[in-house]
């Protein structure tokens, strides 16, 4: 039962609750770095790592420290500082111990602090766990991982679309950002098709 509900959380995070295409979180990097396949993958992996570490820290921090101390209203300010500090820490650790990975992901790290998808996931998993008592820390972690994978899926799909756009003959006023946004609309539209899929696959009740 536990595994089934975790799987449901994971699949929903990728398909039906895709942060970029259905929740509009993390749009700036989605539009900014999705021009090339390589950078799209690099950014998504960096976002996934930071999302998981951030959730792993903020979830217990909120439930075990802020709530007992009656400081829940400090959520926003504490979370953003935790994320900023974590991003710095990840950068330093990567630079010191895994320079190869640092060269691959390092350039995206400073941009992640202001990526709203990261702050978004830390707040949204807490909302979910407040609404549903069976939503545990494990669910939150799976949700963060699924969201990261969903981010990767959206970025990679969209990088493919944009590579095709490069060679298309677009009306002058639509060149650049407008046509990119309109293509994003079509990609988002196709994700609507996944609605109800997760419930259908796992036989409802999740």
């Amino acid at each position, binding site marked *: 039962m536990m595994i089934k509900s975790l799987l449901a959380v994971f699949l929903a995070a990728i398909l039906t609750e895709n942060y970029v295409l259905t929740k509009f979180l993390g749009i700036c990097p989605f539009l*900014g770095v999705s021009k090339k396949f390589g950078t799209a993958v690099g950014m998504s992996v960096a976002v996934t790592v930071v999302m998981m570490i951030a959730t792993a820290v903020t979830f217990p921090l909120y439930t075990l420290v802020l709530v007992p101390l009656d400081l829940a209203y400090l959520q926003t300010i504490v979370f953003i500082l935790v994320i900023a500090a974590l991003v710095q820490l990840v950068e330093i650790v990567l630079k010191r111990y895994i320079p190869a990975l640092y060269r691959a992901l390092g350039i995206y790290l400073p941009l992640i602090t202001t990526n709203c998808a990261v702050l978004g996931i830390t707040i949204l998993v807490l909302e979910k766990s407040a609404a549903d008592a069976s939503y545990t820390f494990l669910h939150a972690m799976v949700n963060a991982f699924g969201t990261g994978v969903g981010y990767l899926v959206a970025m990679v799909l969209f990088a493919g679309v944009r590579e095709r756009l490069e060679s298309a003959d677009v009306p002058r006023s639509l060149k650049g950002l407008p046509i990119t946004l309109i293509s*994003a609309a079509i990609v988002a539209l196709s994700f609507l098709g996944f609605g109800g899929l997760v419930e259908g696959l796992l036989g409802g009740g999740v």
Partner: protein
Amino acid sequence: MEKKRSLLHEFTKGIVKENPVLCLVLGTCPTLAVTTSASNAIGMGVAATLVLLCSNVFISLLRRVIPDTVRIPAYITLIAAFVTVVQMLVKALAPSIDESLGIFLPLIVVNCIILGRAEMYASKNPVLPSALDALGMGVGFTAAMLLMGMIRELLGAGTLFGMQVMPSFYTPITVLILPAGGFFVFGLLIALANKLQGGKSKGRDFSCEACPLAGACTKKETEGACHDD
């Protein structure tokens, strides 16, 4: 007289010429997410303007106190404090707005417009122009969101501020209030803004200049950091 005109300019530039949403393309996430209805757009606009005004004034006051090396964390902390205050105000005064904005209310913290104005303007200018800059940018942000919210609500649901305005034979284009419609309407609005500016900035795109962290980012020279070519 000269001074007065330039102060007025600080206010008006954010509304049309440097509109944060349509010209500088900042704050995309809330623009797309909360513009499903006109009243949501106004709620978000007012909340963000309030935060922007407070953060610009305080950052301008503290511009000689905050050390240069830690300015970004300092700005973020200040902004987060004001967001928390606004969050509590909205919860107390307009609970229905709080419910419909949901997660995007705390996410004002990472709105690029606010950090962008702090970094580009308030950290270099006195209090009065900074406050006017914040008000102008806030009004520009609200106006652009209201325009998008009205288009999406009118065509997507047939209503305006929740009141039925379209005749009964009109079938609402529901897709416009879905996420896909947000991207679509935003794309067309930017195309229109491009057209009205006479195509001066052809092929407008995200670039290092639009990124609020451009000044602090040492990696922009490296390949692909904030998107090259």
